């Protein structure tokens, strides 16, 4: 079975500061990893995904994530955040099957 843990439920950060949102996964098989963003009362939008190959994945809006197999982590980073980055962020995992499993989310608040 696969599962995802997002260690931080809320992350406040000042505008133009760097941010890291943490995600750890649990799986006994190879996995695919995703980060999604959700703005209030909307669906989820894909930020980036890791399937294979380079462990550093770049996504939209200046976000990137690094896959670390030994630590079973897939942390999301951005070197300088903007007010518009305020949103809920979800890490997700899927495997050879068809299911997607999501973490509980991290609420990122960018402070002016």
């Amino acid at each position, binding site marked *: 079975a696969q599962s995802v843990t997002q260690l931080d439920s809320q992350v406040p950060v000042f505008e133009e500061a760097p941010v890291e949102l943490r995600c750890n996964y649990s799986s006994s098989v190879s996995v695919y990893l995703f980060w999604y963003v959700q703005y209030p*009362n909307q*669906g*989820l*939008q894909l930020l980036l995904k890791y399937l294979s190959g380079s462990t550093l994945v770049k996504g939209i809006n200046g976000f990137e994530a690094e896959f670390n197999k030994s630590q079973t982590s897939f942390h999301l980073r951005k070197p300088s955040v903007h007010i518009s980055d305020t949103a809920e962020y979800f890490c997700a995992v*899927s495997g050879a099957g*068809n299911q997607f499993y*999501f973490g*509980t989310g991290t609420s990122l608040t960018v402070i002016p």
Partner: protein
Amino acid sequence: SQTIHQWPATLVQPVGSPLSLECTVEGTSNPNLYWYRQAAGRGLQLLFYSVGIGQISSEVPQNLSASRPQDRQFILSSKKLLLSDSGFYLCAWGWGGGAEAFFGQGTRLTVV
């Protein structure tokens, strides 16, 4: 291009009433379809997924059911709503095997 439609956007229903939420996908064939529920502070919970017409897998036994009467139509139902059924319901589609899931805009259900 593919699009996903989910309706209604908001719904207020009394306890004990039935429920029917509909989701349709355009621009693709034989997608995997998913229903998720998002409760405050609990992330996205996978409720049902389907890999084809009439094929439904339930992740969490509860007061809800799902059906897929047509290739690109996915319906979430309940015969009698409970207060605990309140939440934000999201429909999604994907190809599986590492491809990302694409989400609808969600339905905010309030059971009163």
